[in-house]
C-alpha cells in the first residue's frame, strides 16, 4: 500500500515537472509522420528538459479550426500555417514573431525563398517545415510509343507544345497535357514572363506579358496539344497522367505517392517547367507550411525548443529518408538521397531544385491578404476561355474590372 502511494506521488511529481507543448496540424497522413518525429527525435531529445510535445491533429477543415482557436484564445503552442492564408494569420497579431528566439545564423540555414514566404513586415513568423514546387512529369512509354523526344529543361512553351501535340496526334486517344482552369498551375507560366500578381502599389494589372501566357495556356486545347481535364473526367493534371489519359502533368512531389498507388509500373520522368520563349525564363510557386508560435502560449521557451528540434537537421533527415516531404534546409540539397537514380528521386530532386535559381521566378503561393477572392477571378477567366464561354480579350477585360474593384485602381 505504502509503495503504491509513493509511486503515485513520484508519478505526480513527474507530471508536474513536465511541460507539455501542444502542437496542431493537419490530420490524415500527417498524424503518423508528426507522431513518428515526436517519438523518435523530438521527445527523446527534450526529455532531459522535462518537455513533452503532443500532437493534436485537426481532422477536417484545419484552417477554420485554427482561426477559431486563435480568435478564442485556445490555440495550441505550435501550429501549422499554410502559406496561402499566412498573411491574414500573421496580420491577426496572434502569431509570435520569432526573430528574438532564433539567431540570424539559425534562420539563414533555411532556403531563403521559404523564409521570405513567412516574413511579414520584416519579421519572421514561421519556420518552414517542408515545401513543394511544380515540375513537369511525363510518361516515357507514351512518348516512346509516339516516337517523340522527351520534354527537357531546355524546352520553351513552343518546343514543349510541339512535342505534346505530336504525342496527341499520333496516339489519338491520349492528350498531350490536360489543362486545368487553375492559377496554381497556370501561374508558373505567367511568372515566367516577368508578370507579378501585384505591382509596386499592390494592385493587380493584367498586362501584355500576362496576356501572352494566358493566350498560350488557354489555347493549348484548341491547337490540338492538350484537352481540358474536365473532358477527361479528371480534376487535376496528376489524375490525367496517372490514368494514362494525358502524357504529361504539372504537379509537385505529392504526385509521387499518388502514382505509386495508381500506376506503380509507369515509367515517368520529371523535368522543369517550360521556359517562356520571349523572356527565356521559367516561373514557379513554392507551396509551403510553417510551424508558428502562438502569442498566448504559456510555455514559449519550451515551445521554441520543440520548434527547433522539429525543424532540426536530424528531424528533416528523418522525414527525407522516409520519402515523406522535401526538407526546408539548404544544406540537405546535397543529401545523397536526392542523388539516387530512379523516377522518384528524379521527381524529388527536380521539385527541390525548383525553389532555387534553376526554378526561375519562384513566388510563394500567397496573394496578399486576398486569398481565394483573388484566385477566383483568374480561375474563372481561365475556365470561361477553356470552356469556350468567352474569348481571351473579353475574359481578361472582365477579370481586370474585378481586380480593379478588389485591389484598387
Amino acid at each position, binding site marked *: 500500500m505504502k509503495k503504491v502511494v509513493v509511486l503515485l506521488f513520484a508519478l505526480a511529481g513527474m507530471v508536474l515537472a513536465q511541460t507539455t507543448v501542444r502542437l496542431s496540424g493537419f490530420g490524415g497522413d500527417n498524424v503518423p509522420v508528426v507522431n513518428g518525429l515526436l517519438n523518435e527525435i523530438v521527445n527523446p531529445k527534450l526529455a532531459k528538459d522535462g518537455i513533452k510535445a503532443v500532437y493534436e491533429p485537426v481532422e477536417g477543415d484545419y484552417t477554420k479550426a485554427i482561426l477559431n482557436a486563435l480568435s478564442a484564445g485556445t490555440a495550441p503552442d505550435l501550429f501549422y500555417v499554410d502559406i496561402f492564408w499566412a498573411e491574414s494569420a500573421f496580420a*491577426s497579431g496572434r502569431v509570435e514573431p520569432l526573430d528574438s528566439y532564433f539567431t540570424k545564423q539559425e534562420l539563414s540555414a533555411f532556403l531563403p525563398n521559404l523564409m521570405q514566404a513567412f516574413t511579414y513586415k520584416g519579421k519572421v513568423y514561421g519556420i518552414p517545415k517542408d515545401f513543394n514546387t511544380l515540375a513537369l512529369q511525363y510518361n516515357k512509354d507514351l512518348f516512346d510509343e509516339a516516337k517523340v523526344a522527351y520534354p527537357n529543361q531546355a524546352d520553351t512553351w513552343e518546343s514543349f507544345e510541339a512535342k505534346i501535340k505530336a504525342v496527341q496526334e499520333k496516339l489519338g486517344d491520349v492528350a498531350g497535357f490536360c489543362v486545368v482552369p487553375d492559377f496554381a498551375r497556370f501561374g508558373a507560366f505567367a511568372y515566367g514572363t516577368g508578370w507579378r500578381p501585384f505591382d509596386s502599389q499592390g494592385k493587380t494589372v493584367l498586362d501584355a506579358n500576362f496576356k501572352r501566357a494566358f493566350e498560350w495556356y488557354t489555347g493549348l486545347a484548341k491547337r490540338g496539344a492538350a484537352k481540358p481535364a474536365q473532358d477527361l473526367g479528371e480534376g487535376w493534371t496528376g489524375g490525367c497522367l496517372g490514368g494514362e489519359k494525358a502524357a504529361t502533368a504539372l504537379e509537385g512531389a505529392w504526385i509521387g505517392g499518388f502514382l505509386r498507388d495508381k500506376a506503380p509500373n509507369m515509367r515517368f520522368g520529371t523535368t522543369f517547367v517550360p521556359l517562356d520563349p520571349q523572356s527565356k525564363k521559367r516561373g514557379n510557386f513554392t507551396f509551403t507550411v510553417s510551424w508558428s508560435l502562438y502569442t498566448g502560449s504559456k510555455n514559449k521557451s519550451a515551445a521554441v525548443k520543440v520548434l527547433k528540434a522539429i525543424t532540426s537537421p536530424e528531424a528533416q533527415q528523418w522525414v527525407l529518408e522516409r520519402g515523406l516531404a522535401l526538407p526546408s534546409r539548404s544544406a540537405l540539397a546535397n543529401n545523397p538521397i536526392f542523388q539516387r537514380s530512379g523516377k522518384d528521386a528524379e521527381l524529388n530532386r527536380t521539385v527541390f531544385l525548383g525553389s532555387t535559381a534553376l526554378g526561375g521566378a519562384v513566388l510563394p503561393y500567397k496573394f496578399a491578404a486576398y486569398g481565394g477572392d483573388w484566385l477566383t477571378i483568374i480561375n474563372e477567366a481561365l475556365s470561361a476561355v477553356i470552356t469556350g464561354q468567352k474569348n481571351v480579350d473579353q475574359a481578361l477585360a472582365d477579370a481586370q474590372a474585378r481586380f480593379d474593384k478588389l485591389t484598387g485602381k
Partner: protein
Amino acid sequence: MRLGRLIEATNAFLFLLPFLLFLAVFVGYGVVRTVYFSLTDYNLFDPPKWVGFQNYVRLFREPDFIRALQHSLAFTLVVTVVQTLFSLLLATVLNQRIRGITFFRTVYYLPSVLSSAAITLIFLWLYQKTGFLNFAVSWVLTYLPLLLTFVGLFVVVQAVQVVFERSRGLPAKPFDLALATASLLLAAAGTFALDLFGVVNPREGVQFKFIWLNTRQEWAGLPIPLWAIVLQNIYTTIPTLMLIYLAGLQDIPKSLYEAASLDGADDWQQFTRITVPMLRPVTFLVITLGLIGTLQVFDQVALISGPGGAPLESTVTLAYYVYNNVFPSGATPKVGLASAAAITLSVLTLVVVLLQRRFGVSERGY
C-alpha cells in the same frame, strides 16, 4: 385554488427550464451577438469597431450578395413548388391499399434517411461529364428509335383491341389492364422483330456530354449548377414531406369519399374536391417547412462547390455567403458583413413565411 395554480405554473416552468436554458444559451445569446456583430467591423481578432448600419448598406452594393439573394429566392420558389406537388402525389399513390405497400413506403423514404453529405457525394459522381446521368441520357438517345417504335406499336395495338372489343358490344376502357398487358407483349415482340430484321436500328455514336457542374451557363435565368442542386434537393426532401402528407391523408374520414362516390363523383373530382381541401392545414405545414429549409440551404451547396465542382458564383446562396465571409479561403474574415447577411436572411425567412401565410395557403382548412 390560487396556490394550486401557482404550483402548477411553477411545475410547468421547471419542466420547461432545461429547454429554455438551452434556448437562451445557444439561440438567444447567439442572436444577440450576431445582431451586435452586424453593427460592427470585426475580423475575429481585433476588437469589434462600431459602424452602425454600414454593413447593411454595403451588403446591398456587393454583387455577390445580390447574386446570392437572387439564387436563394429562385431556389426557394422552384424547389418548394415542385417538392410540394410531388410529395402530395407520392403520398396519394402510397396511400392505396396494395399488397406490399410498406415496402414501397420504406424505399421511397430512403433518400431522407441518408445523410445529406453522402447523397451529395453520390450526386457529384452522378453529375460528372462522364458520369451516370449523361450516360443514361446517351443510352436513351441511342435507343430512341426503338423506344419510339415500341410506344407507337403499343398505342396502335391497344387502339385496335379496344375498337375490336367495343365492336362486339363489350365495355372496354381505353386503358383496360388486361388488354394493355397483351398490347405490351405484342409491342415488345414487334419491336424486337423490327430490330432483328434491321428495319429499325439504334442510333450510333450518340454521346450526351452535358456539363452539369463546372459551368457558368444559364438555363431559364438560373446557372446550371444551381439547377443541379435544385434536382438534388427536391430528391432528398420529398420523402419527409410525403410522410407528413401520408399522415394527413389517414386523417380524412372515409365517409366523405363514400358520400361523394354515392353522388357520382369520379376519382379526380374526389381528389380535387375532398383530398386537397381537407389537406390544407398539412399543406400549410409542408410549404412552411419547405420555405424555411430551402431559404437556408447550405450543406449541399458547400459540398457541390468544392474543388473540382461547380464555380462558387454559380451556386452561392445566402447561407453559403454568410459562411464564406466568416471563413474566406486564405483571406481575413469579414464577420461584421457576414452577420449582417445572416440577420438579413432570417428577416427574409420570416417575411416570406408571413407573406405565404397571408396570400398563399394558410393553416385554416376548407
